[in-house]
């Protein structure tokens, strides 16, 4: 009996053993489940193990001017890459000699590569940028000895090259990405290039294209074993899009030539499209300085220069517009009904009222609107603004008048960024009622702020905004946001750059201002711009500068009835508008409308080219 029971119990033990087997297998299946289905990490690890993803860099888009002349293109250069894990044991001294670098530089560079803060994507197993942009000659000496430097590789890249030494501020440049760019956009890896300034930065997305990738198989010892699935998953790089600029490189060249030795900016716009024909900022530099390994050094030099050649004065310089601003006042007064074309104001060498005096030069008085523009009479605009700001029937308070006034200025493109397709544009300054309430503690009137009527005082504008004012007058009341890119390959231009923006002034009032500007050229302040060939309209500006000599400004457009070009020339410390502004402006108009300069004009251009205001040697870095 006892034995029976025992035997029976032993027979049951097969269930225990079966249970153990089941337990083991189901535990393992559970483990497989967690390994294979719940975690993606292993897949990533496996890919990191087996796949060497070689980035294929796309060609960056080329840049041409409005006439199809190539401005910026790509040139092959060679980057030296290093894989930290493999480079141990390399003869460092020999390497330094071959590459013509110092051992100190080598050490510093190596520690930079390892620094996770400077180089967030660092890995010991992947290629890291060691030295960038070797020229073809440097590359050939290095490649001969490449076999003796395990862990060092050469990667072919392309660098930007420039056909002309012009338009550095517009074109901008490319440089290595910084840690912030990498953090912001995971498209970039350490060592990639990114547009740093100008068009290169603004149109980075279009110019850069899309990187491709080639997936290679790498075995456990790091040897390449061919392409994964015969390249089925490789992606070819998509080249960047080509850009056509609205700039005319000849016009740009002349502008830069005429601005030699001067500080200031020139902007020329095609009024009907808002396309910027030239944008000069002086002093300037050769864009080729920003290419290659000397980029860092040159960049440092330029940024330390006292004349700030890196500053794009055409869109970043904020200057009092001076008398060029009177056109805006004339338009506002006409539209608001403050004056009509017959209204005349007295002027006895200036505006005198309640002990306030604002000087003017000698001319016939009293004076009406058109001649006031031609002679640039200050009194007319002081009276006009005073009447407007004192008109309590129309404006209950001076603040209301001010707000109305400000709205006109903003509608003409002042006080806010215009939205040009370049980085760093400044907005200028148009004061408003709260601003004066704060400045004068609520106690102010038209007389207090009278100087804004002649483009002085708190009013500031960029050369771009002044040129744009020229374009709105040329168009009789509208403008298209100025832009430098005319055409993007396979892509529509942003709607912003194709739609008209109307000012608050009706077209009919513009005719009077156009007449005033025409008179200024025929027998006023801009006589130097007069020519038989086409009808030029212009307005000078002589902006008082509390820091030194007055600034010389010119705003004009031509031809009068079919405007092709509107321009602003602004020369710092150039004194009278007629001294620099008018002659430079008229030369540029001639260049653009006739396609070149007449022999007399060429003589004139030489004179202005050599007439320098800033004299220090490093004024120009060409």
């Amino acid at each position, binding site marked *: 009996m006892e034995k029976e029971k025992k035997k029976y119990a032993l027979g049951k033990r097969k269930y225990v053993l079966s249970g153990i087997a089941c337990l083991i297998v189901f535990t393992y299946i559970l*483990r497989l489940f967690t390994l294979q289905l719940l975690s993606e990490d292993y897949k990533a690890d496996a*890919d990191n193990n087996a796949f060497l993803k070689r980035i294929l860099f796309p060609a960056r888009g080329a840049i041409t001017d409005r006439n199809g002349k190539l401005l910026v293109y790509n040139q092959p250069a060679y980057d030296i890459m290093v894989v930290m894990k493999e480079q141990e044991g390399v003869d460092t001294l020999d390497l330094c000699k071959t590459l013509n670098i110092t051992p100190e530089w080598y050490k510093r560079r190596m520690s930079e590569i390892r620094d996770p803060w400077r180089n967030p994507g660092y890995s010991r197993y992947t290629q890291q940028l060691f030295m960038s942009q070797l020229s073809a000659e440097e590359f050939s000496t290095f490649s001969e000895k490449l076999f003796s430097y395990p862990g060092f590789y050469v990667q072919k890249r392309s660098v930007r090259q420039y056909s002309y030494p012009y338009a550095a501020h517009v074109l901008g440049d490319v440089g290595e990405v910084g840690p912030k760019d990498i953090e912001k956009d995971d498209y970039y890896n350490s060592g990639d290039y990114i547009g740093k300034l100008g068009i290169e930065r603004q149109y980075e997305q279009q110019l850069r294209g899309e990187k491709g990738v080639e997936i290679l198989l790498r075995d456990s010892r790091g040897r390449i074993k061919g392409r994964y699935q015969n390249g089925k998953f490789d992606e070819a790089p998509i080249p960047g899009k080509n850009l056509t600029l609205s700039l005319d490189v000849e016009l740009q060249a002349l502008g830069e030539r005429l601005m030699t030795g001067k500080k200031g900016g020139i902007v020329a716009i095609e009024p009907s499209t808002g396309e910027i024909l030239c944008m000069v900022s002086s002093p300037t530099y050769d864009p080729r300085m920003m290419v290659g390994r000397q980029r860092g050094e040159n960049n440092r030099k330029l940024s330390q220069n006292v004349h700030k050649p890196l500053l794009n004065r055409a869109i970043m310089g904020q200057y009092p517009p001076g008398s060029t601003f009177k056109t805006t006042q004339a338009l506002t007064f006409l539209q608001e009904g403050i004056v009509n074309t017959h209204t005349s104001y007295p002027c006895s060498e200036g505006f005198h009222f309640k002990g306030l005096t604002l000087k003017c030069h000698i001319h016939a008085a009293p004076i009406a609107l058109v001649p006031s523009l031609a002679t640039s009479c200050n009194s007319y605009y002081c009276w006009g603004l005073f009447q407007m700001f004192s008109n309590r029937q129309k404006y209950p308070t001076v603040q209301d008048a001010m707000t109305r006034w400000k709205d006109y200025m903003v509608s003409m493109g002042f006080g806010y960024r215009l939205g040009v397709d370049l980085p760093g544009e400044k907005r200028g300054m148009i004061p408003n009622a709260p601003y004066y309430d704060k400045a004068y503690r609520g106690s102010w009137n038209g007389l207090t702020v009278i100087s804004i009527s002649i483009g002085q005082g708190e009013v500031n504008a960029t050369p771009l905004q002044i040129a744009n004012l020229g374009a709105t007058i040329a168009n009789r009341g509208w403008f298209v946001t100025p832009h430098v890119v005319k055409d993007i390959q396979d892509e529509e231009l942003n709607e912003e750059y194709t739609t008209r923006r109307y000012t608050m002034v009706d077209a009919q009032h513009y005719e009077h201002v156009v007449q005033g500007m025409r008179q200024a050229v025929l027998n006023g302040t801009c006589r130097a711009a007069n020519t038989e060939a086409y009808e030029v309209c212009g307005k000078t500006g002589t902006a008082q500068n509390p820091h030194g000599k007055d600034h010389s400004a010119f705003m004009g457009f031509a031809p009068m009835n079919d405007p092709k070009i509107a321009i602003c020339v602004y020369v710092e410390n150039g004194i009278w508008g007629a001294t620099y502004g008018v002659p430079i402006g008229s030369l540029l108009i001639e260049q653009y409308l006739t396609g070149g300069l007449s022999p007399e004009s060429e003589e004139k251009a030489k004179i202005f080219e050599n007439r320098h205001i800033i004299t220090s040697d490093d004024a120009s870095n060409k």
Partner: protein
Amino acid sequence: MPATSKNNRDKGILSNIDWVTLFIFVVLVSMGWMSVCGASYNLDEGTKLLDFSARSGMQLVWIFSSFVLGAIILYIDDRLIESLSYIIYIAFMVLLFVTPMLAHDIKGSLSWIKIGGFSIQPAEFAKFATAICVAKVVSSFNLDLSRWRDLFISAFLVLLPMVLIVMQKETGSALVYFAFFFMFYREGMVGSILFAGAAAVFYFVVGIRYADVPLWDILPISSGEFFVLAAIHLFVAGMMWVYTSLRKPFFQTLCFGMIAYVLAVLYAKYLIPFNVCWVQWGVLAATIVYLFYLAVRERLWSYALISMFALGSIGFFYSVNYVLNDVLQAHQRTRIRVLLGLEDDPKGAGYNVIQAKIAIGSGGLKGKGFLNGTQTKLKYVPEQDTDFIFCTVGEEQGFIGAAVVLLLFLFFILRLIHLAERQPLRFGRVYGYCVMSIFLFHLFINVGMVLGLTPVIGIPLPFFSYGGSSLWGFTILLFVFLKIDSARFRLKK
């Protein structure tokens, strides 16, 4: 109408053989061949799966020769094999003994001897010799393994080849012989030996793995220690339930212990922090004393044995730390610590395990497809076509394929248990259990180490790992059992 058995016998071996097992064998061997193809595929030379210079081609030779070997075994009289048991055993023990002297060193192992152009590993065949001999001894003398003397005799037959294989520096292959304890258990060995073994592994793993993990932030109380002591208490209570009939002491022990622990934890956490293990020691000490008191009062040995189990458990647990830190060598310690996840050593001992996990983990649900695994083909997993062959299954066949393989193995093992149980003679049953135990142990250790669950012990996965010796060894083991099983009707008559 003739008797069924007679009818079967007349039809010969083909109708009596267990086709189910044979079918699983063929399926597993085929899947094994596919895995060897994937693991040994050479990217440089392209597809040459049938080339005999490649491992995939050679494995095919081993597979077909093992089929021939299996067929031959099926036509040998099983009674002949049974009668030769002792001679086979002695012959192999001698062979194992001389192997280290004849062997040439392969990666530190002295287990391979050269015969003609081939190298063979006698240890792979010694498993069969041991199994057949143990079966013969246990059945011939009708040993009762619940008696210590009989157990020692059987265990001696198993320990002898173990020692000889350890001398060949093949510790992994030697450990396989522990599998025979499954068979001992089925044949009457006291179950608590198996349980004590499992408990020891539990104390070891949990105690070491969580030794440095604090129970909660404030106090450095080792959670490993806490949980092991709690487990000892639970095991003691459980044994009181199973081995004694008195219910009151069981409930007292269980409730008293649990209440004391919960109160101690709450007190330490919310009032005054102190080492909760002190309370556990106190409770366990009280329990042991109480058990002795019960043993004396009830005149029951069981209580004394249970209290000895508790004492032994505590002693074992606290000596493990000592052994680990002061007895084991540095590399052994590292292996254990890496296995338990305490050390991260991606280039050293942990490299295999990490790469194996990556290879399997990257397989996903459906796998990368036959010959499409990247990790195995690019040689990231060491020993990928032998010990780590399961990586290839996981990577190329995915979760579905790997789970199917495991389930096939499970079915195979359960089938072997079923076949063993239906044997009319004890010899057949014991031998069947030996075969089943060996397969189970190989599966447990090999797949476990690939999945990072058991220590890295270099033993092959049956029917999958590349190599003639292991495949032939497993084939002989299995087919001798199939032959014995097919002859069962002869005796049932």
